[in-house]
């Protein structure tokens, strides 16, 4: 059963070909060096007989003999070992067994493990149960004991080693693939294939396998490195192949480490670099699968250009008389928020000037990609990833949130602002009781004793309409319904008695009957506490009944703003009107054609000049594509940015309606 309205996913496609740029990101210089190193190893392994090297087991054949423990020099570049053999030649010789063992054991383990894992993950039931038990047993089995036994009975040939490493390598692959298959099999594209008539073989081969290939390949590179390490470890206790391997070279060289460190150091370095190279390449492959992991850079910057002049050209001081300033809980002037991403700079918030008075509710309406969530985040200054710069003024209860010292900003966030997000489960800690999550912060912030804090928690829960609060305190978040959880997060947001409540799609994940209850609750709490609220939503109808003023966002800008009633009664911006008309109307008969906004929302990476809505606007002319429209005021509090606004007489022909009721 689907939750009614999961986050809206319609995002403008990035302008740069994503696959190519992701490849460029994942494959930095270190990865290319690693690939080069692996290529060198392969070359050495294949052509070792043709290379101009001394025979590894014989003494100087081509030039004069290598002395015992000869130091690196012109005679032997990396010196000689205890028997006067060329260390370099022996290390090169070791590449072949390393690759044969690593590649064949890894490939066999990866293929068999994937088959087992996919069978378990896709067929589930008994197959899954049996494989899980087998995998657990294998993982618990002492591999070393197995190895000693096998080696004792079957010798130390390459074949025995490949089989041994392959068999012990299967369980990890089976586990990874099983997990991946389980989550893939729940995705709807698998259901869609089944609905089309695909049989099991087809589902596995063309739906599941291609999505599993890359993660398995990534793990295989790391698995190869593990095999190399394991061989080295075995060589140390004298259980290796009957060939020259790096492990044996290291083991042999360690005895003389003090007199001739180079003998052990060269094979050890080679092994180290090989393991590093395979791991780096494996990680790079994984970052293709999950490109977001590449964006680890985190920086928050504030530009210094403090705007004296609002974008409409009016001096800021004149638009806001000093006495009304105090009444402004939130005051934002010409805020720009730019996300610096590898795909380019995203102009998420592009020059927003807004304010919220004490006790007032401001609705921010926009579709996905309009920048409405980024606008909220710009107020509190937390961004999930990347390099962000902000400019302009964000003032909360008179505190400059961009330029004050971190302690002041933190204190303002803690005492003046409460947050309610769309998904209450992300706001609540799943393994702690409601009591802990509510009471602990009160004890820390207000130095209340446990009983007093608990009493206050119960009072808060009662005020948000949670039935039986004493009992609910003992509950874990998963024991509550979605509506009750959201009530708890609202209670948590109220702990510090905030002046400003920021609510980001607070009812989007909830059912209509519960949605209405919560919106009523938010309104009531706001009146009781003279609290201000910013309500961010994609749903015009939610804003209509529950806010005093509205700002309509599109493409990172506010395109129209004003008192809710007057804006809905007489929208001026073409986007606002189009948005209102595209909502299905309850009073129209079935199968009525809906008015649509053609095209897609604009990309905020290098957006074109002019009005952001121009590309989709039926009234757009050349000026819309070149000049950004400035604010046109209907009165002090009611304005829009449009070169060709909707005239009142135009609206009369088609009344604008929101969810059934004519405005």
């Amino acid at each position: 059963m689907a939750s009614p309205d999961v986050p809206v996913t319609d995002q403008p496609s990035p302008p740069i070909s994503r696959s190519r740029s992701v490849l460029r990101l994942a494959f930095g210089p270190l990865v290319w060096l690693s690939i080069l190193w692996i290529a060198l190893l392969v070359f050495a392994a294949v052509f070792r007989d043709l290379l101009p090297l001394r025979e590894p087991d014989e003494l100087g054949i081509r030039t004069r003999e290598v002395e015992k423990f000869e130091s690196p020099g012109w005679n032997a570049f990396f010196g000689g070992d205890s028997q006067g053999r060329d260390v370099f030649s022996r290390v090169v010789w070791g590449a072949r067994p390393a690759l044969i063992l690593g590649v064949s054991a890894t490939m066999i383990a990866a293929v068999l493990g994937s088959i087992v894992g996919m069978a378990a993950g896709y067929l589930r039931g008994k197959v899954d149960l049996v494989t899980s038990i087998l995998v657990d047993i294998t993982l618990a089995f002492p591999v070393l004991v197995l190895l000693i036994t096998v080696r004792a009975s079957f010798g130390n040939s390459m074949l025995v080693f490949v089989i041994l490493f392959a068999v012990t390598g299967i369980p990890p692959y089976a586990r990874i693939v099983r997990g991946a298959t389980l989550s893939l099999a729940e995705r709807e594209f698998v259901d869609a294939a089944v609905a089309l008539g695909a049989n099991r073989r087809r589902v596995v081969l063309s739906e599941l396998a291609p999505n599993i290939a890359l993660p398995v390949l990534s793990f295989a590179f790391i698995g190869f490195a593990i095999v190399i390490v394991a061989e080295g470890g075995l060589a140390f206790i004298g259980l290796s192949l009957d060939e020259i391997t790096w492990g044996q070279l290291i083991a042999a060289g360690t005895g003389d480490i003090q007199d001739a460190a180079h003998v052990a150091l060269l094979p050890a370095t080679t092994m180290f670099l090989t393991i590093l190279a395979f791991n780096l390449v494996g990680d790079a492959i994984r970052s293709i699968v999950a490109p977001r992991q590449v964006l680890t850079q985190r920086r928050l910057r504030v530009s210094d250009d403090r705007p004296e002049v609002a974008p409409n050209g009016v001096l800021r001081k004149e638009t806001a008389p000093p006495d009304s300033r105090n009444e402004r809980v939130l005051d934002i002037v010409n805020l720009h928020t730019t996300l610096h991403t590898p795909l380019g700079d995203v102009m998420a918030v592009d020059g927003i000037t807004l304010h919220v008075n004490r006790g007032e509710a401001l609705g921010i309406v926009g579709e996905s990609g309009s920048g409405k969530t980024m606008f909220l985040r710009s107020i509190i200054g937390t961004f999930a990833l990347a390099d962000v710069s902000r400019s302009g003024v964000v003032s909360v209860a008179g505190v400059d949130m961009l330029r004050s010292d971190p302690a002041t900003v933190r204190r303002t966030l803690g005492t003046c602002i409460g947050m309610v997000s769309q998904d209450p489960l992300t706001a609540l800690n799943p393994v702690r009781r409601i009591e802990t999550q509510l009471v602990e912060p009160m004890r820390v912030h207000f130095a209340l004793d446990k009983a007093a804090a608990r009493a206050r928690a119960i009072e808060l829960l009662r005020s948000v309409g949670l039935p039986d609060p004493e009992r609910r305190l003992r509950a874990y978040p998963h024991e509550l319904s979605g509506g009750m959880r959201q009530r708890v997060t609202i209670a948590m947001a109220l702990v510090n008695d905030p002046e400003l409540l920021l609510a980001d799609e607070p009812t989007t994940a909830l059912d209509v009957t519960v949605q209405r209850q919560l919106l009523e609750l938010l309104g009531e709490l706001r009146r009781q506490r003279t609290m201000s609220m910013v309500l961010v939503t994609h749903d015009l109808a939610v804003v209509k009944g529950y806010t005093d003023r509205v700002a309509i966002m599109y493409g990172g800008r506010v395109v129209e703003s004003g008192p809710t009633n007057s804006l809905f009664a007489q929208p001026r911006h073409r986007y606002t009107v189009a948005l209102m008309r595209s909502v299905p109307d309850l009073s129209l008969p079935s199968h009525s054609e809906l008015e649509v906004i053609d095209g897609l929302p604009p990309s905020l990476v290098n957006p074109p000049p002019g009005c952001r809505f121009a590309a989709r606007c039926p009234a757009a002319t050349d000026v819309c594509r070149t000049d950004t429209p400035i604010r046109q005021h209907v009165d002090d509090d009611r304005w829009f940015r449009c070169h060709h606004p909707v005239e009142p007489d135009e609206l009369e022909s088609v009344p604008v309606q929101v969810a059934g009721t004519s405005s």
Partner: protein
Amino acid sequence: MTDNEGSDDVVVRVDNLVVEFPAGRKQVVHAVSGVNFELRRGETLGLVGESGCGKSTTGRAIMRLVQPTSGRVEVDGVDLTQLPTNDLRRLRRKMQMIFQDPVSSLNPSRRVRDIVREGIEIWRDDAGGNPLNDTKATELMAAVGLDPAVGDRRPHELSGGQCQRICIARALVVDPDVLILDEPVSALDVSVQAQILNLLERLRAQFDLTMLFISHDLAVVRNVSDRVLVMYLGRVCEEAPTDELFSTPKHPYSQALLASIPGVDPTTQWGLGQPDELVSGELPSPVNPPSGCRFRTRCPLANDRCASEVPRLREIAPGHRVACHYVD
């Protein structure tokens, strides 16, 4: 509304459908508990209800993507709940499903063209005599409004609206009679939602489709459906022609649902009370549903009879059925 009410025109008949899932500790989730309805050729039947009411499970059970616990699902007179795999595959082709999350509905590692062609690939060598050819895919990409250049892209490069168009094209490739749409526009922006709804309406006429439209959004269901079925906690509360349901909702839950639509004043619209007078509390757990009428724990009219006796779905006007003891 459909004017053909004859039983011959029933494409899908759902008869006492029950779907239960194990919930651990010997408990059972009663997802769907005895649902009956018919889907008539050419109509769009809206299936509304809040999360947890069993509407999606009903849709999936009709496709046998979940195995019904009991009951029958007849498609053109054939019961598919007991059909062997190969016959089931063949029968499923008559019905296709569109899911809520368009991005998750598309295999991320395949190109759009191959995704749309998937049905053709599967049925290319159909010995049973209805193979498909490649031009169909091109035709359908055009029919759903996709630029042919999109064919070379992968799903993650496209917007949600475009992905949903691809899903629709993929479903229509195999010439289905019935389309089961599970919240097809809920994940889309309002402006894109209208595009997809208009597209579905056009395709319905073009391809003679019968639709089961599952949604929590009443305004959307109002727009697309000929008849509407309201579900609550695994049972049908009310079934009525769309205009009738939206003008005179009879079941207390239907009334509460309509009154809760944001932006609507239930007093002027239906002469009803405010939502908090019509419904209280939240959905009980489907693991432990209330006895008798399942809505009784939240219903202002409930009394002892509601707790002891399950209300039958009774016809109160032609085509209008209600399961409530207090509706006449």
